[in-house]
């Protein structure tokens, strides 16, 4: 009897204690602060964010916030989401050559030269640029990686991009297989992109006279890509990757806003026509990347060779060095990139009036022969326990600065009045980026 009484008393005390604990826990959960809730929400996600400011000397400026979020799934896979927004404004080259006399052009939205607010005038000797250029782009993408077996993973994904005059949708899929103790990975990827263009003022009739405003309609293009990759762990501190890729785009590949000066024998412009590019383009590229690490430093070297059916061949080399401080919570990362390309077969800085020429022509300097150099430096600091309740391993704040210079080379000399003018001014730009990873 005594034992039963003690057991009943003990049960009552246990129930009372449990109720007290539960009510205390409930009270605590009700008092959970917003930061704590945010911390729990982000607990399994790795967040990277950055805002880049890009500024060209006398031309375009852009601001670009980017956010990506990734988390591992319970089966060892991964979900990756990303979002980008670009806002651009400034002056964009329209393709025409400089001239000894002032030149007046119509904005893309103009229907005639009559409306003064739709025209702009470029001074003698100056590169013709549309000073009212502005654009905005929103883009988002997602990738899901999942295990097919212990050594094989598949990734499926897609991305979407929207501008006032351009929409793009891409789907991609790839499969990776590892062997040799996971020291070797081979991968095969495919992608398919569909783009829809609604040029402001309509798509111009290729090679039509600029003053006739023969424009209208929407255009589209599509592309397919194939990428074969091999990744190899070479040593305890050396990793290498080699890719070969092939992609083909077809459809409307013109820039609807680019024109070409038609000059006479004296070098003076007599008219302007819209550009025309081939309606298909196949690119092949080979890419090699090596990464080597030491205790407080690492180096990444990448090389790329590309050739396409437009006659463009390019070489790219980039090296990044990273040095850590003794505590390994701060680093400095200088980088250099060198790039050169040959001109497209149909690149023409101008057309000489009444002179025979092929069906394709573009004065877009991006299709000219040039070389470019980029110098950059990045500083990063691991915040780890410096953020109080927000603290987490891997939290990082970083700043990056880059300078880009493009120099046009081997452009034909200007005849007559064009001689002595700066026909190929090139491009200088800076990029400043602020980043935060959590």
């Amino acid at each position: 009897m005594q034992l039963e009484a003690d057991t009943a008393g003990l049960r009552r005390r246990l129930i009372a204690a449990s109720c007290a604990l539960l009510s205390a826990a409930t009270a605590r959960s009700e008092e959970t602060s917003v930061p704590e809730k945010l911390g729990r929400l982000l607990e399994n996600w790795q967040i990277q964010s950055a805002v880049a400011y890009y500024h060209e000397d006398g031309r375009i400026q852009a601001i670009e916030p980017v956010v990506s979020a990734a988390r591992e799934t319970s089966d060892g896979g991964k979900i990756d989401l990303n979002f980008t927004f670009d806002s651009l404004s400034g002056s964009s080259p329209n393709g025409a050559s400089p001239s000894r006399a002032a030149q007046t052009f119509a904005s893309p939205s103009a229907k005639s030269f009559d409306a003064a607010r739709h025209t702009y005038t470029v001074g003698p000797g100056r590169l013709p640029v549309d000073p009212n250029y502005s654009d905005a782009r929103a883009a988002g993408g997602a990738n899901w990686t999942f295990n097919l077996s212990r050594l094989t993973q598949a990734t499926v994904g897609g991305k979407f991009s929207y501008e006032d005059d351009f929409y793009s949708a891409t789907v991609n899929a790839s499969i990776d297989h590892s062997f040799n103790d996971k020291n070797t990975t081979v991968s095969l990827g495919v992608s398919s992109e569909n783009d829809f263009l609604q040029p402001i003022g309509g798509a111009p009739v290729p090679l039509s006279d600029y003053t006739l405003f023969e424009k209208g309609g929407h255009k589209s293009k599509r592309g397919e890509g194939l990428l074969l990759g091999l990744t190899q762990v070479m040593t305890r501190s050396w990793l290498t990757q080699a890719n070969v890729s092939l992609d083909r785009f077809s459809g409307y590949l013109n820039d609807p806003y680019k024109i070409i000066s038609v000059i006479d024998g004296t070098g003076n412009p007599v008219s302007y026509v819209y550009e025309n590019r081939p309606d298909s383009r196949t690119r092949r590229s080979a890419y090699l990347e090596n990464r080597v690490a030491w205790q407080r430093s690492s180096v990444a070297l990448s090389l790329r060779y590309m050739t396409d059916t437009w006659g463009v061949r390019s070489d790219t080399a980039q090296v990044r060095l990273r040095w850590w401080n003794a505590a390994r919570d701060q680093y400095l990362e200088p980088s250099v990139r060198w790039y050169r390309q040959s001109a497209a077969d149909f690149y023409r800085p101008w057309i000489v009036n009444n002179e025979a020429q092929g069906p394709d022509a573009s004065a877009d300097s991006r299709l000219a022969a040039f070389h470019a150099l980029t110098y950059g430096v990045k500083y990063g600091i691991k915040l780890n326990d410096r953020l109080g309740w927000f603290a987490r391993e891997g939290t990082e704040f970083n700043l990056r600065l880059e300078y880009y210079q493009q120099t046009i080379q081997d452009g034909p000399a200007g005849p007559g009045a064009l001689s002595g003018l700066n026909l190929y001014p090139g491009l200088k730009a800076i990029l400043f980026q602020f980043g935060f990873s959590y």
Partner: protein
Amino acid sequence: MIGCVIALSTVFCSACSSLGVKPWQRELLSRQDMRLDGNGLDDAIDDHVYFSKEASSGGRSFAGGGCGCN
């Protein structure tokens, strides 16, 4: 060119079995700066700039840009 790269890759692959490390030797390789996608947003932002200013794109990944800028 593609054929040469594939042939070289085949030769490279056949040599793969003598390369590599054991799982417990991956300390340096597991660092963030040794990941092939370790430059994440920097590469995405740079690739967008280069895509809009040059005639080449891709190599590390697919060549498409999803941008009307070029």
